[in-house]
C-alpha cells in the first residue's frame, strides 16, 4: 500500500509541474481566446535567458530574475505590437497560426543569442527525498517537488485575485469574448494584451526555472508544453483552478497507469489469449487518451465555461 501512495503522491507532485506550464496557456486563452502554441518556446527562452545572463555577467539568482523578467515583459509588449495588433478582429485560427510562427521564431532566436549548450541551473534546492518522511513513513516525497507545489499554489492564488478582483482581470474576459465589442465599450485591448503576454512571460519564467533546475536548461524544455495540453483539456482552457486540478489528475493518473496497467493488461492477454507482450511505456499517450475521453463527455473541461452560440 505504501508503494501505491508513493506513486500517487509522486504523480500529484509531477502534475503540479505540468500545471505550471498550463497556467501560461490559460492566461493567453483568457485574454484572446487563442491557444498559444508558443508557450513552450517562451518557457525555453525565459530559462535560457536567465542562465545566459548569470553566465555572461556572473549574476546571482536575485539579480538575473528581474532582468529576465524585464526581457519577458519587453517580449510581451513586442508580441502585442508586431504580431497581435495587426491581427485584431481576425479569426482565431489566424491568431493561432501566428503563435505557431512565433514559437519557431522564439526557439531560433533563443539558440542564436545564447547558443545550444546544455546548462545547469542551480536554485539551491536538491531533488532529494525528505529524510523525516522517508524515515517515519517509508514514503518518498521530494523536497524539490514540494517547493514547486508551493510556488504553483502561490501563483494560482495571485492569478485568481488578478482575474477576479481587478479591473484588468474582468476586462480580459470581455476581450476574449469579442475583440470589437470590447473595444466599443472602451476596454484598451492593446494594453490588455501586452499585460497578459507579459504575465504569461512571468509564468513561463517560473516554469522554466523549475523545469530547468530539474532537467538542465536545454531545448527539451520546449517539450514540457506537450504535457500541458491534456491538462488544459481536462481542466478547461479558461480556468486557472482548472489548470491545477487538471494537472493533478493528469499527473496522478498517468503515473498510476504506467505503474499498474501494463502488468495487469499483459497478464490478462497472456491468460486469456496466450499473447505475450510488453505494454510498458503507456505514460506518453495515456494522458491524451484521458483528455480525449473528457472531450467526449465534457468538451469544455472541468472548470471551463460552457459557450452557447445562438444560430
Amino acid at each position: 500500500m505504501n508503494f501505491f501512495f508513493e506513486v500517487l503522491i509522486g504523480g500529484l507532485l509531477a502534475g503540479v509541474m505540468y500545471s505550471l506550464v498550463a497556467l501560461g496557456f490559460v492566461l493567453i486563452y483568457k485574454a484572446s481566446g487563442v491557444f498559444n502554441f508558443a508557450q513552450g518556446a517562451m518557457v525555453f527562452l525565459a530559462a535560457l535567458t536567465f542562465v545566459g545572463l548569470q553566465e555572461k555577467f556572473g549574476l546571482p539568482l536575485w539579480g538575473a530574475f528581474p532582468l529576465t523578467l524585464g526581457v519577458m515583459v519587453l517580449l510581451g509588449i513586442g508580441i502585442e505590437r508586431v504580431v497581435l495588433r495587426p491581427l485584431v478582429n481576425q479569426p482565431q485560427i489566424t491568431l493561432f497560426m501566428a503563435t505557431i510562427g512565433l514559437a519557431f521564431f522564439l526557439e531560433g532566436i533563443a539558440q542564436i543569442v545564447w547558443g545550444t549548450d546544455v546548462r545547469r541551473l542551480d536554485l539551491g534546492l536538491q531533488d532529494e527525498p525528505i529524510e523525516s518522511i522517508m524515515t517515519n513513513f517509508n514514503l518518498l516525497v521530494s523536497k524539490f517537488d514540494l517547493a514547486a507545489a508551493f510556488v504553483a499554489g502561490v501563483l494560482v492564488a495571485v492569478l485568481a485575485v488578478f482575474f477576479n478582483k481587478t479591473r484588468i482581470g474582468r476586462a480580459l474576459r470581455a476581450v476574449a469574448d469579442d475583440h470589437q465589442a470590447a473595444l466599443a465599450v472602451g476596454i484598451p485591448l492593446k494594453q490588455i494584451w501586452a499585460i497578459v503576454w507579459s504575465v504569461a512571460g512571468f509564468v513561463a519564467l517560473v516554469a522554466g526555472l523549475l523545469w530547468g533546475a530539474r532537467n538542465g536548461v536545454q531545448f527539451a524544455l520546449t517539450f514540457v508544453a506537450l504535457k500541458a495540453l491534456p491538462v488544459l483539456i481536462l481542466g478547461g482552457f479558461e480556468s486557472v483552478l482548472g489548470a491545477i486540478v487538471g494537472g493533478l489528475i493528469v499527473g496522478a493518473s498517468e503515473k498510476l497507469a504506467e505503474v499498474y496497467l501494463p502488468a495487469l493488461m499483459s497478464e490478462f492477454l497472456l491468460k486469456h489469449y496466450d499473447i505475450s507482450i510488453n505494454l510498458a511505456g503507456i505514460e506518453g499517450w495515456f494522458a491524451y487518451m484521458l483528455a480525449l475521453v473528457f472531450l467526449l463527455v465534457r468538451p469544455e473541461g472541468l472548470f471551463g465555461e460552457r459557450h452557447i452560440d445562438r444560430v
Partner: protein
Amino acid sequence: MQTWKRTLIGLVAGLAAAASTLPASAQQAGTQFIGITGYRVGPYGANGAAFFGGFTDYLAMINERDGGVNGVKLSWEECETEYNNAKGVECYERLKTKSATGPTAIHPMSTGITYAILDKAVTDKIPLITLGYGRTDATDGRVFPWVFPILSNYWDAATGIVKFIGEKEGGAANLKGKKIVLLYHDSAYGKEPHPVLEAEAKKLGFELKMIPVPHPGNEQQSQWLQIRQYQPNWVILWGWGVMSATALQTAQKVGFPREKMVGNWWAGSEIDTVAAGPAATGYYAASLNLAGKGFPVVKDIEDKVYAKGKGGDAKLVGTVLWNRGMAAAMITVEAVRKAQEKYGKKPVSGEQVRWGIENLKLDAGRMKALGFNTMLPPLEVSCQDHGGSGQVRFQQWTGTEWKSASDWMRGDSVLVRKMIEESAAKYAAEKGIKPGCAS
C-alpha cells in the same frame, strides 16, 4: 497592403539575386568534398554541436597542418538535419550531387536517419559510417557492404556493460541471481540492445527488467518508483538527450546510488552530467573514446586551427563528443588516404572510399602516429567485420570530469558475432541479397 506586397516582392527578388551570386556549394575543384549531415540546433543540438565541431576542426587541421591528404585539400559542407529523419534524407539528397566524386562518406549521427537512407546509399554507392550507432547487424559487411558501424556497435556496448558489471561484482559468475534494470529510450535506438541483453540474462542467470521511458524522457517519476520497488543491483541507462540527465536526477530523488548506474556511450557525455549537476557524481558510462585534451592531435588542432581563429567553440575541445567527432573525421580521412593508395592521389569517389574503409587498419602504432594514442582502440576493418574493434572502455564522472574506470575491453564477442550473423542473414533473405565480399 500595396506596400506590404511591394516589400515582399522586393525581398524575394533580392534574395533570388543574392542566391544567384553564391557558389553552388562549398567544394572547390580538385578537392576531396565531404558532405556532412549535421545538427547544431534543435533538441539534440548540444550533442551535434560537440560532435560536428570536433569533426570539422579535424578536417580544418588536416588542411592547415598537412595541406590536405597527399596534397588533395579537403572541402566540406554541412547541412542541418535537426536530428529529424525527413530533413536528414533531404540533406543526403542535397549533398550527394554537390561534387563529381560525391560526399565521400556520410555520418548520419542518428539511428533514425541511418535507417532512412540505408537503401539509398546502396543505390548511390555512398558509404555510411555509423560510429557507435545505427543497425547493429550491419557489422556483417557481406550483407551490408555500404554501412560501417565502425569501432563498436550497440551489442558490443550492451555485453561490454554486462561484463563491466560482472567485474564490479567480483566476476561474471556472481551475476547469477542479481537484478539488472535496462532503462531505455522508447524508440528503435532504445530497443536495439534488447535481444542481446535477454540472451546474456539467460546465459549468466541474472534477472532482467526492461523499463521504457517515453520520448523525450523529461519526466521519469513512475519509472524510477518502479525501480525503487524492484530494488535492482544495477541500472543500465540507454538514454539520449534530456532523458539521461533526468534519469540521473530522478535516481537521486529515489535514493538509487549513481555508482550502480552504467550508461551506454550516448548517455555518457558532459552534456548529460553537467545538466544533472551533483546528481551525476559517481555515474559510470561506456565509451568509444577517451575524453580530455592530453593527446597530440588535440594540441595540433589548438595550434593549427584555434590559434589562427579558424576553430569552432573552444570550450568543447576535449569533451567526449568533440573527441568522438574528431575520431569520426580521422577515420574518414584515413579511408580517403587508403583509397588513394589504390586509386591514385586525387579526389576519390564513394565507391573507392568504401574500399578504403573496408581495408582500413589502424594499429596502436598508427594511432600514435596520428596523435590519438590511447584515445581509441586499435581498428582493423574487413568485409566480414565492418566494426573493426568491438572494444569499449568505461569512465566515471567525478563531479567535474570523466575519469577512465577500465582498460579497453570486449564484451561477449562470440555471442554478439553469432547474433549479428543470424540477424544479417535474415535481412539478406528478406531483401534478396546474396551475401558476399567484393574483390
